[in-house]
């Protein structure tokens, strides 16, 4: 064998294509047109969130009083004033700039909420799943049930109000508090999902094999079970993002969370709603942004779910 190998010229030895799980998944994702659309939508949104405020023609708080005064102190509709392409609100604040800043807020929601969800949901689900049937599992899952049954909005509002005066409540203009509060109500699904994954995964033979060579429980959970259960977690997180954006918009609409002069898409809608008849652009512009973000993330999430499902391998 060894001598044969020496004899083969280097060029003849093909470098084996690594065809890992992720490679396959990306390949399948690329064939899914909606997922690709979602992917680019998410990328575009990410771009807006990161660089938007730099590209914005005006600071989000700036009031172009001269322009509104010239318009009779009324909101400027889109495509009328070249310095305010998407118009302004009644205070002369540039809509485009405010929506770009709103994109940053929405993205932060996506990140912080999902981070909280992962940090709470995965460990709780993992512990309950690994020690399934134990008193710990029972306790954790009943707690999860309670959280699941609790009215989300009420909890978020209570939480926001209770911590409003603390340093944590003041962080990021009060936004961090809202995001964490949303995360605190959103982790239950992930916890249940991870527990369910672990219940089936821990019966796999490779777990027994790992136990047979003396791998500690901790390492079995972290190194063996989590990587095997990661796909549905990724999907849940991706699909959780639009839910979180929507939750933030809902809260902003009822006045919890981001405070003026800063605005998220939700609070822009809330601010524009009284003028929906005469100046609909104040409502539909941020509405379009929310819808676009939700659809992008949902398409991507659905695509990921299909791509990461090994049972669908080779189909489509």
């Amino acid at each position: 064998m060894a001598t044969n190998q020496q004899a083969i010229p280097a060029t003849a030895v093909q470098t084996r294509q690594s065809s890992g799980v992720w490679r396959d998944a990306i390949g399948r994702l690329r064939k899914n047109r909606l997922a690709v659309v979602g992917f680019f939508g998410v990328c575009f949104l990410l771009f807006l969130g990161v660089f938007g405020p730099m590209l914005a023609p005006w600071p989000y708080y700036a009031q172009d009083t001269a322009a509104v005064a010239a318009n009779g102190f009324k909101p400027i509709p889109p495509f009328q004033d070249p310095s305010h392409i998407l118009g302004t609100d009644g205070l002369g604040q540039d809509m485009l700039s405010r929506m770009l800043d709103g994109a940053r807020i929405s993205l932060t929601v996506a990140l912080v909420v999902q981070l909280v969800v992962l940090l709470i949901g995965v460990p709780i689900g993992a512990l309950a799943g690994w020690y399934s049937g134990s008193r710990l599992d029972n306790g954790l899952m009943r707690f999860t049930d309670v959280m699941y049954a609790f009215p989300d909005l009420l909890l978020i509002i209570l939480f926001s109000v209770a911590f409003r005066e603390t340093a944590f409540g003041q962080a990021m203009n009060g936004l961090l508090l809202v995001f964490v509060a949303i995360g605190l109500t959103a982790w239950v699904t992930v916890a249940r999902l991870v527990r369910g994954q672990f219940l089936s995964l821990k019966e796999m033979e490779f777990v027994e094999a790992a136990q047979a060579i003396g791998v500690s429980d901790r390492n079995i959970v972290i190194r063996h079970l989590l990587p095997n259960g990661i796909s549905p977690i990724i999907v849940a997180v991706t699909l959780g993002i639009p839910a979180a954006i929507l939750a933030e918009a809902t809260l902003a609409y009822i006045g919890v969370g981001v405070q003026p002069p800063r605005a998220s898409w939700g609070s822009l809608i809330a601010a524009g709603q009284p003028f929906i008849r005469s100046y609909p652009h104040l409502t539909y512009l941020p509405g379009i942004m929310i819808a676009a973000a939700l659809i992008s993330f949902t398409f991507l999430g659905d695509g990921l779910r299909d791509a990461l499902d090994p049972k669908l391998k080779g189909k489509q």
Partner: protein
Amino acid sequence: MLPAEEDVPAADAPTIVELSPDDVLRARTEAVAKVGIGRDADHLLEVRGLSTHFYTPDGIVQAVDDVSFDVGYGETLGLVGESGCGKSVSALSIARLVPDPPGKIVAGEILFDGIDVLKLSAEDMRKLRGKEIGFIFQDPLTSLNPTLTIGYQIGEAIREHLGLSDKAAQERIVELLSKVGIPRARERLKDYPFQFSGGMRQRVMIAIALSCDPKLILADEPTTALDVTIQAQILELIQRLSDEFSTAVLLITHDLGIAAGMCDRVNVMYAGRIVETGTVDELFENPQMPYAWGLLDSLPRIDDIRGERLRTIDGMPPLLIRPAAACRFNPRCAYARDICRSSEPGLTARGNGDHMARCWATETEGWIA
């Protein structure tokens, strides 16, 4: 297939090329003769009165019932029997891997190298597993984690038990992988299980089992999931490496051919009990229990007439819930008499002291000579 023929000269040092079970057998006989592994060695593993029960909704299943056996240092002991006779549960009990619940080791003593395994704390037990006791599972396709590289999985026990530096561990992994006959070992460390064939994966499992130089390997039907050619290779590999590392092997199999080729001694299990034990030669030449006859008789033979059905043992193994105080094989036994149905025979000596059987009929005063 039988170990009696010694007329063919022994093969040279075995290579990884295919070997028939007879070649394997010959190499083994030589090795035993050379090293003198066998009955006089001290016991690495002593199992005394082991009973493992499963608590199911239907009742208590006595999967392993008062089983005692020894494994000498470097010895290969076979554990043969039908499905569900308690072979695997015995092995799992030794490593204390019986799923609890529903399983529980209810009685007995397992002395491994003088350590009472059943009295160890869970943490001490974990340190023993993989380091002193290696495990080779039946199905290499499912026993490797699909999301971790081969290199990581072989290195897992090494990192867990030996505390080697990353570099030293890496070297050992490469060495192990080449030892089990994986070509271009260094390049394949980063490969995932799905890039390996079934036989290669079982080689990887063997490398994992041997990674910390254990004193005992529990091989639970290591070749059942493999085709016959690969089977011979894997058995040869286990044999060669267990000799090289002077590792004792507890080989669980339902294939008597494998037991004949691999083992120094064989325990026949039936319905949670050991019903016959002896050296390979004695057991195959002079079985002392109708069940063992039945097993031997149901082996396909080269001189079988084509198209004829293979012989089987009639009936089914008994349920292990509340076994009756009787010979457990009696309902399927052609030689059974009243005594077989009313009381259970003990495991008593036949001929020399090493060959023992559990059968009224073949006792000295029995009705079968």
